């Protein structure tokens, strides 16, 4: 028998699960997330290994979802000094990099940038040709400014990245091999400022992410788990740890993605609303074809605008630890919360704070702690608080929907006990088994992807032949990355005609996804 290990490092808890070859949960654990992250992982992994009593060597894949990179950006911690080269002149000089960035992050990154000739028009014609000497001297200036990582952006580099590659080649001569360089064409899509911002953030967290992933791998090895480590990314697929070291910014939204994917797996549904109730907040997202619906607007990370597509979520201040208080006749729940102190502070656990969890126990929806401690709670208060909680969730469910039709609602997360079995707008409310470790399960069942992004001449070969060719190439990439050839399929094909070009050039972005090869 072979197994898979899934780990999710959340803000409050680190969860781990072991799944067998048939995706059944063999063991699960939940431990507090530690300051250094690694020891929380160690404890959660020790617990699942002990409980399952399996041979660690029979774990063939381990998958980790972590918001380590996001936290580094949000908390301005361990960031590297970044130098920026933008190939754009004569365009772009009017809007330099770092404009409208939060003031408190600038001292951590410095504000080092050089704008040089290069870049393309929308149709691939160069705006101007890059000048090696100019690039060399710009890089030397950044070298003197003692930058620790380099971010390179270029106008329309998603259409053609030759100019960015040239900078990487010259940077190697000046900074030496192994110096961290991030290219915007490898990070994002059209919209130079957002793409450049994401590239700068990626460069800034390369060092801290690399060392964190290294230590996570060591924790696993120390427990005899020698399987290759994969890191989960924003779109719900996996990166090898070596790849994640180069593109840590792709993990920033992996937390909610894992929760949504876990909910899909546990419920067996592909189209549903997912309500993830934690200790302090409730996140509501929506599943379409088994994957999270993505937001249409620009997403900020730590106050920096990027064009990443993230799961479309609405968060409200409601969780198991939310305070319940009266305001005249009204009863309010949250947004203040006792958070991780719930197991000490809530009334049912012998504490002195009236929380949403106490209300759920009093209403007979959950069997937790000592119900004797809440027998004095007024019936009227319990009823009002219960309906308040239900209404809060129902309003968000309605806001997430795209039509007025009822949809299935899946609840996950430890705070699911707060929710009744019926909700307005829900065709049914599903509380699946193992819902408290949905994120770790989401990580464990992640698939692996391969993608192709390039400009092709459809006039010469014909559109159908080119599409067949790029599909084949994407499938090949996924298989090369470790996907099972039997399960790979094309999940995304974007065709972007580069108008006004006589050659009929079309940009194709194709993504193939498959299950990890077993064993």
């Amino acid at each position, binding site marked *: 028998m072979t197994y898979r290990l899934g780990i999710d490092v959340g803000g409050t808890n680190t969860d781990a699960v072991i799944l067998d070859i048939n995706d059944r949960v063999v063991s699960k654990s939940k431990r507090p997330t530690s300051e250094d992250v690694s020891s929380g992982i160690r404890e959660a992994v020790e617990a699942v290994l002990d409980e399952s009593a399996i041979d660690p060597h029979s774990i063939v894949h381990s998958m980790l979802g972590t918001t380590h990179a996001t936290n580094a950006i949000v908390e301005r911690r361990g960031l590297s000094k970044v130098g920026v080269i933008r190939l*754009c002149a*004569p*365009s*772009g*000089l*009017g*809007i*330099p990099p770092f*404009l*409208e960035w939060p003031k408190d992050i600038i001292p951590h990154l410095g504000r080092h940038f050089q704008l040089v000739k290069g*870049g393309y*028009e*929308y149709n691939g014609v160069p*705006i101007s040709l890059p000048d090696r000497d100019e690039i060399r001297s710009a890089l030397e200036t950044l070298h003197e400014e003692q930058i620790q990582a380099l971010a390179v952006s270029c*106008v*329309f580099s998603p259409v053609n990245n030759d100019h960015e590659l040239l900078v990487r080649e010259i940077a190697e001569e000046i900074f030496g091999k192994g110096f961290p360089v991030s290219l915007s064409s490898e990070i994002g899509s*059209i*919209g*130079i*400022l957002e793409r450049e911002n994401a590239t700068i953030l990626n460069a800034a967290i390369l060092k801290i992410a690399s060392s964190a992933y290294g230590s996570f791998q060591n924790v696993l090895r120390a427990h005899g788990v020698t399987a290759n480590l994969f890191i989960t990314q924003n779109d719900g697929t996996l990166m090898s740890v070596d790849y994640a070291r180069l593109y840590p910014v792709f993990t920033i939204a992996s937390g909610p993605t894992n929760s949504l994917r876990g909910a899909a797996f546990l419920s067996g549904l592909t189209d549903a609303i997912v309500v993830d109730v934690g200790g302090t907040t409730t996140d509501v997202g929506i599943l379409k074809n088994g994957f999270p619906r993505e937001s249409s*607007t*620009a997403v900020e990370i730590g106050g920096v605008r990027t064009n990443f597509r993230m799961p479309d979520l609405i968060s409200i201040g409601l969780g198991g630890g939310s305070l319940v208080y009266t305001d005249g006749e009204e009863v309010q729940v949250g947004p203040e919360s006792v958070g991780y102190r719930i197991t000490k502070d809530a009334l049912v656990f012998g504490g002195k704070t009236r929380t949403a969890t106490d209300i759920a126990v009093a209403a007979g929806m959950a069997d937790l702690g000592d119900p004797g401690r809440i027998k004095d709670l007024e019936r009227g208060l319990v009823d009002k608080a219960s309906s308040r909680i239900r209404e809060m969730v129902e309003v968000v469910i*309605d*806001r*997430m*929907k*795209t*039509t*007025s039709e009822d949809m299935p609602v899946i609840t996950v997360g430890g705070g699911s006990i707060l929710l009744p079995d019926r909700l307005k707008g829900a065709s049914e409310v599903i509380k699946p088994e193992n819902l408290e470790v949905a994120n770790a399960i989401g990580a464990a069942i992640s698939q692996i992807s391969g993608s192709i992004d390039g400009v092709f001449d459809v006039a010469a070969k014909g559109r159908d032949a080119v599409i067949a060719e790029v599909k084949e190439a994407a499938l090949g990439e996924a298989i090369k990355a470790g996907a099972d050839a039997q399960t790979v399929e094309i999940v995304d094909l974007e065709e972007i005609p580069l108008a*006004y070009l006589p050659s009929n050039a079309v940009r194709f972005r194709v993504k193939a996804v498959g299950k990890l090869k077993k064993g």
Partner: protein
Amino acid sequence: MDESRGRAMRFLKIDDIDQLAIGAAVLGSGGGGDPYLGRLMAKEAMIEKGDVRLIDVDEVPDEELVIPSAMMGAPAVMLEKLPNGNEPQAAFKAVESFFGKKAFATMSIEAGGINSCIPVYTAARLGLPLVDVDGMGRAFPEIPMVTFSLGGVKASPMVCCDEKGNKVILETINNAWIETLSRTVTVAMGLSSMIGLYVMDGKTLKKYGVRGTISLAIEIGRRILSANRQKESPVDSILELTKGYSLFEGKVTDVQRDLTTGFVRGNALFEGIDRYRGTGFRLDFQNENLVGLLDGKPCAMVPDLITVLDRETGSPITTEHLRYGQRVVIIGMPCAPIWRSEAGLKQVGPRYFKYDIDYEPIETLMERRRV
């Protein structure tokens, strides 16, 4: 004669830009798009060149030249190939040599989107004052839909400039040719250009401009942002300022869009909440909001302004961002009086947009609703 004597000088500062962008979106009546790039350009120019002087229309001498400025092109390209910074200078030089006269000031064509902030950018770059005026008092989908057209002002001569320093002056026989030729030039420039058009003198501007649009937009934006900080609703305060009306409160239940015509045509349906429970609202749009119907009866129509605001924050929601489940307040505001003239309604009234209804001012419709 010094017409500015006795008047306190007023300057736009960097902090005014966010307010201007939000307030202009309220006046934009659902149109104009994302002001992000315009906001950034204005701020960057002000960091480099300093504050921008805002002047009243009456401070522009009759014979002096005002050049409105704007950007034209594909939004996706404008967000990729950013400006050089010298385009306004090149554009204005070209127009000035055409007329043999220096520009006295610049101004906005419309409220809403990127082009509410571009004139601030131009003013800062060139050290010119910005006139507190525009040509719509709102946003409209087509170039000729400006109040200046009512005064016979032509879009031609128009200038297009790119980031490389190329500039083209178009002198055409009518506004339709301006549209055709400026599109061709903009494509050749890489789908983005800085433009100047509807050049006019102070005398014409005084007669046909929509006065006070910039300061009104800034004040609306200021009220929204400050109400957000206090966690209060800015709606009543906006209505008081704009002499507007609350038309409806409800939830979006359906949005339909048709992109085939090159415009975003469609409609949104709303279901009433609180005091509007049991009623329904329908909002028709073509880029901008055109007609609002409460239970099937028109309660506001173009050229009066109809804007959808987020019920909690009061932030304007443009037509492309309307979606199911949003809780909103729909407000209506009277348009600039000049649009209510016969010529004005012929150009932008409901019949122009293929509605078989006669224009009725929002004040009349609201009075009838009250009875």
